[in-house]
């Protein structure tokens, strides 16, 4: 009789059909345009670095879950793939394979699995991996191959050149062609250069409701406003706002790294505070710090503040009175 098979469960009995897997693979899809641009400029090297990074991240997660935790393996939930892609996008395209593997071990092993795996890590794993590499291998991590279209023979020789932010850090003001910067024809990490490709992916994520506008707008808006003030004070010494947004990892950081759900605040209000913090710290480091790029450090610093931000920026309760009338204690 059918009646004996009836399931008993509490409401709601329907679900939005959204899943962690779908969200993670949406991020992978959103990163594809930028990946294509990097293949165009760096050729097979871009594919090599990205594949090594993804495979290493998945392998590290699998090994830890299988042999250390002896539990369920979840490497196909997409989160390790996203970490692998983001790590690859944050390193130079000519990086040695073993350095990438070390980055993956730090990102997944230390920054993610130590804290209990997906959902429990306070810091963005890919950025932790990247910063570890930057500090441990400073020369390899800052030797950037110059972009060459695939068919250009010279691409085979590792021609290296400076990044816009690197030059700025040395005190040089270079006239960059903004169109080149917009498309991605400049020195830099593998996946961070092409503004247009990153924006296309960002719009996809917005439409898919994987991210909200709060963090990207707050980060980029703050960066633009802060650098505009400095530029207004002395245009010969400081770079203009557009340069800051197009150069370095600003867009990659604002759209894909700072918006990582696990390590960003829960409410719109909190996201704005968090984004403004990242914007200010990034410009501070870029302008006065010894590192040319400050996006990674800014995101990590604000990651640390997320629990506090969540506590400060609670949503307004329905029907909440601003100052609740205190009940008089009757004697």
């Amino acid at each position: 009789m059918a009646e004996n098979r009836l399931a008993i469960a509490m409401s709601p009995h329907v679900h939005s059909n959204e899943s962690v897997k779908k969200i993670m693979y949406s991020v992978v899809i959103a990163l594809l345009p930028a990946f294509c641009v990097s293949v165009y400029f760096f050729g097979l090297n871009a594919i090599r670095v990205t594949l090594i990074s993804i495979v290493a991240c998945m392998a590290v997660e699998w090994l830890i879950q299988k042999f250390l935790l002896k539990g369920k393996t979840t490497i196909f939930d997409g989160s390790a793939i996203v970490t692998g892609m983001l790590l690859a996008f944050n390193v130079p395209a000519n990086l040695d394979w073993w350095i990438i593997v070390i980055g993956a071990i730090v990102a997944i092993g230390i920054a993610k699995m130590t804290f209990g795996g997906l959902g429990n890590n306070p810091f963005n794993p890919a950025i932790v991996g990247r910063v570890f590499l930057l500090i441990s291998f400073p020369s390899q991590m800052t030797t950037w191959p110059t972009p060459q279209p695939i068919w250009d023979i010279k691409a085979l020789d590792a021609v290296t050149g400076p990044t816009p932010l690197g030059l700025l850090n040395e005190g040089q003001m270079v006239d960059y062609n903004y169109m080149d910067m917009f498309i991605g024809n400049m020195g830099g990490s593998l996946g961070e250069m092409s503004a247009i490709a990153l924006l296309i992916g960002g719009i996809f994520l917005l439409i898919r409701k994987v991210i909200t506008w709060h963090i990207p707008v707050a980060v980029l808006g703050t960066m633009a406003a802060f650098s505009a003030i400095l530029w207004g004070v002395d245009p010969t010494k400081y770079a203009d706002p557009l340069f800051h947004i197009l150069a370095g990892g600003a867009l990659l950081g604002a759209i894909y790294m700072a918006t990582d759900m696990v390590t960003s605040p829960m409410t719109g209000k909190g996201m704005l505070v968090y984004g403004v913090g990242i914007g200010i710290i990034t410009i501070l480091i870029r302008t006065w710090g010894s590192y040319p790029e400050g996006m990674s450090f800014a995101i990590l610093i604000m990651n640390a503040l997320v629990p506090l931000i969540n506590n400060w920026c609670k949503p307004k309760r329905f029907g909440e009175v601003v100052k609740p009338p205190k009940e008089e204690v009757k004697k």
Partner: protein
Amino acid sequence: MLRTFPKGGVHPQENKISKGNPIERIELPKQVMIPIAQHIGAPAEPVVAKGDTVKVGQLIAKSTGFVSANIHSSVSGTVAKIEKTIDTSGYKNTCIFINVEGDEWLETIDRTPDLKTEITMSAEEIRAKIAECGIVGTGGATFPAHVKLSVPQGKKCEHLIINGVECEPYLTADHRLMLEHTEEIMVGCKIIQKATGAEKIIIGIENNKPDAIAKMTEAAKKYGITVMPLKVKYPQGGEKQLIKATVNREIPAPPALPIDVGCVVQNVGSTFAIYEAVQKNKPLFERVVTVTGKSVKSPKNILARVGTPLSHLIAAVGGLPEDTGKVVNGGPMMGKAVKSLEVPVTKGTSGVLMFKQSESVRMEENACIRCGKCVSACCMGLEPYLLKNLAKIRDFDALKEERVLDCIECGSCSFTCPAGIPITDYIRYGKATVTKILRSKK
């Protein structure tokens, strides 16, 4: 721009399969089972005994307090037994079983279909009549109507808001009622207005029912009633959300009531029942029930007698589909899954839904990725993920502090969670325990 409530909410697939099917009566069952607790408040006290013969509309259980409601027989026949049985709520309750013999109504009930627009009773008499006829909110909360319509001294009812939102997916009972009994609902509004002294009447209807909006707007002109189309968003049929959407006022945290912000809310189903009680002297013993599901042969909107077993309704729509995995009493967002199909229709049964096997399985629970979707879906401005975590570690003081009691259990957080965490379940547990602790302290 259509109005709606600003904070939170979700948009589940509507699946209003039965919206084109007119309300119909079906053959009476052989036996009905009428629970004495079909409303919020004290259960009624049976006034019949085994072997008594009753007529349709006869009082069989008497209200036992102010917040309680009378129960009337929905059929004519002989009382077979009165015993404790698991009813639609899933709990054991006293139920009155009546064997159906013919269909003989009390002579006092006006069974003509004529519209009676003239309201002769005074406010006092209207409230007494509504209490006598056992009218409760038919939207699902089943709060006794006469209590809502008694405006306490010192309070004023500015807005009477009629809930024609029907924001639950699948359900079409209120939709059909608005199309087929438009004038009766209008008169019902005027009756409630007289009882409460309301200055304005607003009927809120979601925009996915354009035919009902058109018909109601046309009829409302004569009566000086405003029909307000609203943007489709769940849970707009919640009292607090509806008041916010229509008149932009927020009810403070419990125990505050709609009347504290000058509003009284009634469902269109209750409004129709109030019309029938006051103008036709007919107690609430039958209601429109949407019987539907994706695999159901012929989904219907059935005018069912209270006490009819769900199996009888299911037989009327072509039987239980072979692939059924779950049967829900009410809507898919807030309804209850039933264990047995022999439980009865009550005053609060708005629908009987049959879910396919594939729709009855919950998603596997994954780790929370702190995406914040539950926070943005919460229509009460709570942080469901936090309440879930606190409930898990049983920190009831913190739960109270985080206002777990504000939760209306609409289910939007569970609905939206990509990790498939049954957040609403955890919050229900927290809410129930906090309530218990507070009661024991008193």
